[in-house]
């Protein structure tokens, strides 16, 4: 089956450090991967999209990489802050990109300690 998997264990880091979250996929090659942030009791909020022909994408303190050889995307938050504490979801397009259907990983919870 075509899976997308994230580390289900929570990631705890100290403020100011770089947080790195992993998203792995198997048995297919997605044209796009997306990353979302989800706070408790809230809906996911879109952060970044990376295409298969892009190795890296940045937005402020966020960086996403896409390694089609390793079948992996890494999500980095540099100079992390307690306000970055949340669950981060990766997602891929399911089927044709014209429908926008998403398949999500289970999410990784990040806790940034002051």
């Amino acid at each position, binding site marked *: 089956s075509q899976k997308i998997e994230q580390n289900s264990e929570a990631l705890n880091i100290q403020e100011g450090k770089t947080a790195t979250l992993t998203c792995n996929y198997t048995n297919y090659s997605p044209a796009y991967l*997306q990353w*979302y942030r989800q706070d408790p009791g809230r*809906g996911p909020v*879109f952060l970044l*999209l990376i295409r298969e022909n892009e190795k890296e994408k940045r937005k402020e303190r966020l960086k996403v990489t896409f390694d089609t050889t390793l079948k992996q995307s890494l999500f980095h938050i540099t100079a992390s802050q307690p306000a970055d504490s949340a669950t981060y*979801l990766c997602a891929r397009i399911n089927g044709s990109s014209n*429908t926008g*259907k998403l398949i999500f*990983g289970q999410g990784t919870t990040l806790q940034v300690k002051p």
Partner: protein
Amino acid sequence: NAGVTQTPKFRILKIGQSMTLQCAQDMNHNYMYWYRQDPGMGLKLIYYSVGAGITDKGEVPNGYNVSRSTTEDFPLRLELAAPSQTSVYFCASTLGGQISLEAFFGQGTRLTVV
């Protein structure tokens, strides 16, 4: 713009009862979706719509129905509630196609079936 609005935010249903979860978006998006999220899991697609009058099943459609009579509204109907439908439900929308794949989510409806 309000974005995607879901009502109600919370609901407790008895087994066998019915209800409709409301979803409305004011961004003139053609594509709308219903996902459910169980604890520690990623979101799973229930139904989706690529435009008014067009709906299709997602990954977990059993026990649910949808309609799309207008571009703005996409209600989700539970006919005979079962404990397995206890979950958090998210409505989402996208502009669709190759234009934008960013999904906008509502704040969710937490449903408990007892």
